[in-house]
C-alpha cells in the first residue's frame, strides 16, 4: 500500500468516527459562584459553581453545565454574524442549519431558534410553549419557552431562551433541563444570569 493510499484509508476511517464523536469528552473549566465570567462578548455572573465545556456548540457559542449536558445545559451565544448558523453544522448536506439574517424580525428569531435547536440536537418532538418580548442587557429581544422529548430516554425536557439582535449580530442565552426536578431547580438562577447579562459589543 502506498503512502497516499494509506492516508486515504485513514481518512475514511476517521470520518465516521469524527462524525459520531461525543462532545461530552472535551475538557472543563470551573466557573466559580459569584465571579463575573466573560463568555466571549457577554459577561454573566452565576450564583453557583458551573462547568464550562472547552468545546463549542457553535462558532460563537459556549456551553455550561452543573451536572452534565443532559441534566442542565446553559448555552451562551455572543455575536453570531449575518449569514452564519447558531450551532455547528453536523450534517450540512442532509440536514443543514438555518443561517441567521440580521434583517430578521423578532418573531423570525423564534422560528430561527426552533429550527436551529431541533436540527442540531436532532429532535423530532419539539413544541414552543410561548414567545414573548424580553431583553438581553437592555436590548429588545424575545423569550422562547419550549418543551421537547429526548430520543435516547424519551425524557421530557423544558427550555427557555432569550435572543436579541445587537449591532446586526445575534446574542442568545438558552437553558434546558429535564422537566422532572432539574428545570425548576435551575431556572431561578438562570433567570438571574439572563437578567444580569451584559453585552460588551459595540
Amino acid at each position, binding site marked *: 500500500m502506498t503512502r497516499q493510499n494509506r492516508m486515504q484509508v485513514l481518512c475514511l476511517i476517521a470520518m*465516521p468516527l469524527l462524525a459520531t464523536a461525543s462532545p461530552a469528552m472535551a475538557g472543563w473549566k470551573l466557573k466559580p459562584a459569584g465571579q463575573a465570567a466573560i463568555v466571549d462578548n457577554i459577561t454573566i455572573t452565576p450564583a453557583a459553581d458551573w462547568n464550562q465545556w472547552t468545546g463549542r456548540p457553535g462558532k460563537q457559542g459556549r456551553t455550561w453545565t452543573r451536572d452534565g449536558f443532559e441534566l442542565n445545559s446553559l448555552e451562551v451565544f455572543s455575536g453570531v454574524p449575518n449569514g452564519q448558523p447558531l450551532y455547528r453544522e453536523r450534517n450540512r448536506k442532509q440536514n443543514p442549519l438555518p443561517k441567521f439574517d440580521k434583517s430578521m424580525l423578532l418573531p423570525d428569531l423564534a422560528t430561527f431558534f426552533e429550527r436551529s435547536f431541533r436540527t442540531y440536537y436532532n429532535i423530532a418532538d419539539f413544541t414552543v410553549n410561548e414567545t414573548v418580548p424580553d431583553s438581553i442587557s437592555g436590548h429588545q429581544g424575545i423569550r422562547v419557552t419550549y418543551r421537547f422529548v429526548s430520543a435516547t430516554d424519551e425524557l421530557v425536557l423544558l427550555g427557555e431562551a432569550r435572543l436579541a439582535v445587537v449591532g446586526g449580530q445575534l446574542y442568545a442565552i438558552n437553558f434546558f433541563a429535564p422537566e422532572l426536578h432539574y428545570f425548576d431547580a435551575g431556572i431561578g438562577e438562570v433567570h438571574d444570569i439572563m437578567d444580569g447579562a451584559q453585552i460588551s459589543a459595540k
Partner: protein
Amino acid sequence: MKMKNHSAALFAVLFLFLSVLSDTPALAQEKGAVREGFSAEALQGQKIVLVRPSVWVGEQSMAGVPEPNADWTAQSRELLVAELGRRQAQFSNVIIAEPELVGPEAKLFADYRSLFSTVARSVMVYQFFLGNRLPTRKKGAFDWTLGDGTSRLGELTGARYALFVTTRDEYGSTGRKIFQLLAAGIAGVGVQSGVHQGFAGLVDLETGYLVWLNADGQMGGDVRTEDGMQKRVRQLLEDFPGLAEEPAH
C-alpha cells in the same frame, strides 16, 4: 519528510479520537458508588419497589449508528424480568413489583424510569470517567438526585426505596466488525464494536437521592440468551447492599 510528519499528526489525532470513542484504558473508569452515610443497615426492614426495567437492544451500523431490534428487545426484557424475579429471594428486603397503574400514575413511573437512565448515564460520563469528571465534582462526593418528587412513587407503592434497572445493548453489525478489523490492522488502533451499557440504582424515595449505583458502559453477558442475562444481572446487582452473592458460573 513532510508526508511523514503529516502521517504522524494524523495518527495522533486518530489515536486521540479513537481512545475517546473506544473507551480504552486512557480513561480510567469507576463503576459503582454509594452515597455517603448510606449502608446495608439503612435498608433493614425497608420495602423496595422494583421499577419495570428499561431495555433497549439493537444493532450498531458500520458508522456506529444504533438501529433498534424489536424482537431482541422483547426477548431481553422477558429474560431480564425473569432473572430479576429469580434473584428476588436473595434480597434481605421485601421486594415488590411496580404496580399495574394506568393514566397519570403510570406515566409518572415511566417518566422517572427515563430520568433515572439519564441521571445514571450522567454519573457514568461526568463522574465515573475520571478524565471527564466535572470540576464541580472533583471532590468525588456521590451526590446525585432524581428530586424529591419521587416521594409520590413511595405513596403509590408503600416502599421507601426504588430499584431501577436500565440496559442498552447495541450489537456490532458485520460492517462494524469489518471496520473494527480494518482500523486495528491498518491504523493499529482500537475501535469499539458494540455498546453494552447497564445501570442499576437504588433511590431513596423520600429524598430522591441516588444512594447506590452500578453503571458500566462495557457490561458482559449476551442479553438475548438466558445464560447471558444471568451474567448481566449478576454484574448489575454486584455489591448491592445486603444481597446474597451468587457464585459465578
